[in-house]
């Protein structure tokens, strides 16, 4: 058994999953925003990075890692809420390119401000889990305590979000506000507030992804979420922007694809993993693999 776990095939599975859960979280956060406000949040990664920085500056002052993660999530949620209120709310009903452009501008500003404050030198964030890989009978298994933490945390967050949507009143209101805003308003749902909450939720999920990324061997630096955002976006598109399950599946798929391309082709071409999957997926189903078919309005 242990020799199977240390086979290069399993190395790639573990590596792909570890990276993939980060993509899944980003994809999930994009889907939450899309479902509630039909906006593509280009600044998602940058906002999450900013929140992580704020949380992790406390780490240097001796605050425990877990508190820092909490701070990052709270800051992220606040940022998400404010962004929706100030930047996105005025643009409802306008052409769909407008919020995209605003978010792109916001992305540039956030990254520039983050670099001004914290410089672009990579910071190592020490999570309270070792990054040394396990060895069984002298053979390497590409799992470390940190990787396990990474995967467990990501799954926990996804389950929490799912539970929120399925089993709570808030979740019901969020879904109602997204699917049928006029009807929901008539039934007493504060639709605008739900939209803000949707953004806050999305930003919180994104912040977790950024925290995990920064605590790994990657380190924390202002543009660290750029590549992750692209992959997460592709994952969401592959899965279908309407489907949280699809987003999660898409993220894992892209993580695995990149890892296998890295291993069996050349490292240079690894980023193409996502591209190849996207092209195939969208050629088969232009509206995303997990989306229910929608008729064309005439």
């Amino acid at each position, binding site marked *: 058994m242990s020799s199977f776990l240390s086979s290069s095939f399993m190395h790639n599975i573990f590596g792909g999953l570890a990276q993939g859960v980060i993509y899944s979280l980003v994809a999930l956060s994009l889907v939450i925003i*899309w479902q509630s406000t039909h906006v*593509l949040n280009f600044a998602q990664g940058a906002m999450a990075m900013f929140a992580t920085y704020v949380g992790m500056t406390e780490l240097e002052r001796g605050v425990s890692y877990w508190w820092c993660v909490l701070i990052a999530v709270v800051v992220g949620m606040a940022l998400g809420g404010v962004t929706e209120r100030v*930047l996105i709310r*005025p*643009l409802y009903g*306008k*052409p*769909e*390119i*407008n919020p*995209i*452009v*605003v978010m*792109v*501008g*916001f*992305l*540039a*500003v*956030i*990254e*520039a*401000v983050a*670099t*001004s*404050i914290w*410089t672009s030198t990579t910071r190592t964030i020490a999570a309270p889990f070792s990054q040394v890989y396990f060895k069984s009978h002298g053979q390497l298994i590409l799992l470390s305590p940190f990787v396990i933490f990474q995967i467990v945390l990501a799954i926990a967050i996804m389950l929490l979000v799912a539970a929120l949507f399925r089993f709570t009143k808030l979740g019901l209101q969020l879904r109602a506000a997204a699917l049928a805003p006029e009807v929901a308003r008539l039934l007493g749902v504060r639709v605008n507030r739900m939209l803000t909450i949707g953004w806050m939720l999305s930003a919180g999920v994104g912040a977790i992804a950024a925290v995990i990324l920064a605590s790994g061997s990657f380190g924390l630096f202002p543009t660290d979420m*750029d590549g992750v955002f*692209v992959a997460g*976006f*592709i994952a*969401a*598109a592959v899965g279908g*922007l309407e489907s949280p399950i699809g987003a999660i599946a898409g993220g894992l798929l892209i993580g695995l694809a990149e890892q296998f391309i890295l291993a069996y082709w*050349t490292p*240079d*071409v*690894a*980023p*193409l993993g*996502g*591209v190849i999957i*996207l*092209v195939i997926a*969208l*050629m088969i189903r*232009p*509206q*995303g693999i997990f989306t229910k078919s929608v008729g064309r309005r*005439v």
Partner: protein
Amino acid sequence: MGWLATLRKQETTHIRLVSVLALTILTLAITFVLSPVADSQLAGGAAITIVILGLSWLIGWSGQISLGNSGFMAVGAYTTGIWAHHHAASPLVITFLLAMLVGGLSGLVVAIPSTRLRGPYLAGMTLAFAAAVTPLAQNFTSVTGGEGGLFFNTLATPSWFGHLFSGVNASIDSNAQWTADLAVAIAGVMFFFMANLFHSRSGRAMRLVRDNDVAAELMGINLSRTRTLAFVVAAAFAGLGGSLFAIINATVRPESFPLTLSITLLTLMVLGGIGTLSGAVLGGIIYSFSPSLVAHVNSLTGVNPTSNLGSNMQGIIFGALLILTMLFAPRGLTGLGQRLRSFIQSHM
């Protein structure tokens, strides 16, 4: 009635030609008074204007959000790089036409999966394409020169042009200016083409497909062909812009066309005015002189240019401009100019 319409159309085309010519000559005259360094910046701006012209067509007139134009620029640039490596003495016209051709072809390739997509999916597909360019260029080393890229000779200044300059620095000045003048002239030509395209039947069909595709289909317009044409044209223009870039810099590397360039193009186009010709020109000008602009802002506000804040000013200024433009002036500088003009007119 037919010949009258044709006559009127010709008249309009002539006026268009004259105004474009005048604008180009004015810009060329200005290159004579600019310093060599400013001339080089202007040359880059002219190349960007060409790319934005195509982008305006794609996003503004065809309504297809594309983030892939940096990729098309790279295709044009690498085509030129590879061609110049093997055929150093071929005339520039051939080089540029080749870049447009290959660029247009790559547009066709991307259009095939893309024209069925809408909104964010289209953005995602084109984003993925642009993100793929750098790894592809880095990997296929034997063709693209890999990480190090391709280098070729700088543009040779013709001797008749060189004779216009004198003094110790004559050759430096003439070399810099020749590059700028060439770039401006080509931009003028492409501007004229795009102006005609805008006012042509294809242009009108494009806008109809953007606004109401059902009506367009009912009128017999082939949706997929119209959308594909938009991609091909935009890609050809971007390929030419990329090629010009490569020639101005005498080099092409995988890092020359990162994803952030696609975003910069979008920014410049929005600031200038989406879907307008003058917007493309304004976008190019902003590109040329943004370093000087940022330096001015730094000195006005007393910020040290090499401090953390100072060196990130460009991102802050442009990001903020983009947000403010989208919220308060979504039609960019051109839109503001139009509003100003109608304000003045209504108060005459």
